[in-house]
């Protein structure tokens, strides 16, 4: 069934390419390059670090392939872990293989991504097509992804034993994009994406789209706070619309980037994000300053503390479903070397990057406070966290 669906999508992409293609002047393939990165996230008593490798090369004059290897080494004693278990360590490994095919003004891509943790496995097949037209001032793109997640969990507090599958999730992404060159110094693009999830509970686990480690809370303010396994709907559909723009500042040969995204889903969550960036070259260096603001409303079935167990059909206290705002400010420095080539290298860059991420929750309380003093139940202070986000990487074009 799935194979037939994939075959239909690929067929649609190829047919669309033939339909759109009236080419004489070509779009271009992505550049051949190697990127080696180490990354680090440290915030909310969660540390995540690891390497990442990206290799992209042309196998023919109109075909490019890429391979991405990415690792998260996770050490977590987060507020969720403290309330629901004990600190743990785990590793997530993600690998992607992609192919881009260029035919005149049409680019088609196909990629497969596989992500593995001890308690979570995900794979996604993505297909996309883009077409330049109107003197290459405009680009229309569309894409589709089909993903499957298999969810399990650690059993008890033993970090090395895991349950059978608790939930199986299928996901479809539908993307549409339009980019336009506005002037010789500015571009703008619009993007739309609809994502649908459907979870199938396995073996009466009670787990659908929820994280099996998270709990909802119920009790009486000032008296007690109890916890029970969250109950989520088994489907979710979301829509997102984004507008992005780039402006070249001729006098400084620098660039300004901006973006806005609107988001809404059928769980009642509404979110907006706004981003601004400025990139400034100084001789062999390139400096980037960026700022991002994100604001989210809560899900309809989220409460920090319900009145009693099984009060509603769906009940959640996952902080990612609460109302919160998040701000990040970051800076990157990039040093360009071998600008005129060196051996088989066309050029290269050394890059370091730092962001401070701050998240302030509006209705997610620090329930750890009432673990030792029950009179604080439901009146604990609101939770917030700061995180240091860093990367260092080398890029080589060849």
């Amino acid at each position, binding site marked *: 069934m799935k194979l037939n669906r994939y075959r239909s999508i690929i067929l649609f992409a190829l047919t669309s390419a033939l339909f759109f293609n009236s080419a004489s002047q070509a779009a271009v393939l992505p550049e051949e390059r190697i*990127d080696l*990165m180490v990354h680090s*996230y440290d915030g909310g008593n969660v540390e*995540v670090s690891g390497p*990442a490798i*990206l290799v992209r090369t042309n196998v023919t004059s109109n075909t490019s392939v890429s391979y*991405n290897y990415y690792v998260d080494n*996770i050490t*977590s004693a987060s507020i969720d872990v403290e309330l629901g278990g004990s600190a743990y360590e785990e590793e*997530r490994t993600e690998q992607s293989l992609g192919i881009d095919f260029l035919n005149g003004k049409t680019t088609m891509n196909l990629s497969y*991504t596989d*992500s593995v943790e001890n308690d*979570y496995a*995900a*794979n996604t097949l993505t297909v996309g097509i883009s077409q330049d037209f*109107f*003197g*290459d*001032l405009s680009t229309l793109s569309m894409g589709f*992804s089909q*993903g499957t*997640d298999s969810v399990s969990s650690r059993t008890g507090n033993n970090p090395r034993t895991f349950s059978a599958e608790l939930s199986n999730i299928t996901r479809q*992404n539908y*993307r549409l994009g339009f980019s336009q*060159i506005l*002037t*010789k110094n500015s*571009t703008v693009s619009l993007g739309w*994406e609809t*994502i649908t999830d459907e979870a199938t509970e396995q073996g009466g686990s009670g787990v659908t789209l929820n*994280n099996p480690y998270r709990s909802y809370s119920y009790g009486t303010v000032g008296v007690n706070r109890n916890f029970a396994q969250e109950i989520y709907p088994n489907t979710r559909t*979301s829509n*997102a*619309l*984004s507008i*992005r723009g*780039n402006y*070249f500042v*001729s006098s400084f040969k*620098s*660039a300004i*980037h901006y*973006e806005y*995204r609107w*988001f809404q889903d059928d769980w009642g969550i509404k*979110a907006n*994000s706004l981003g601004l960036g400025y*990139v400034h*070259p100084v001789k062999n260096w*390139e400096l980037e300053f960026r700022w*991002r603001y*994100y604001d*989210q409303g809560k899900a309809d079935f989220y409460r920090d503390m319900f009145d009693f167990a099984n009060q509603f059909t769906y009940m959640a206290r996952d902080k*990612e479903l609460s109302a919160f705002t*998040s701000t990040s400010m970051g800076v990157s420095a990039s040093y360009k070397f071998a600008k005129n080539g060196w051996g088989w290298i066309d050029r290269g860059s050394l*890059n370091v990057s730092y962001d401070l*991420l701050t998240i302030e929750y509006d209705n997610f309380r620090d329930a750890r406070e009432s673990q030792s003093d029950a009179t604080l139940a439901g009146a604990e202070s609101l939770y917030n966290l700061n995180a240091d986000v860093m*990367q260092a*990487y080398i*890029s080589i074009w060849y």
Partner: protein
Amino acid sequence: MNRLALIIVAVFIFSGCSSLEPWVKPYERENLSDPIMNVARDPVQAGYYHHVFETRESARGAGAVTGGGCGCN
């Protein structure tokens, strides 16, 4: 009435398109082709930011890159 309005709009659009020429010529696109004009010019970094935000926020989609997995507890 609605149909008339639709026809007027359609005529306006299509007559406009027929005379509309690409207004930025290929030789005027030097600045646009500068790598710093691409916010996701380093895909390995863009993919990382996508993962950092998407695992901590409910909003998803309409971004520059796609990914998978959780790594988020």
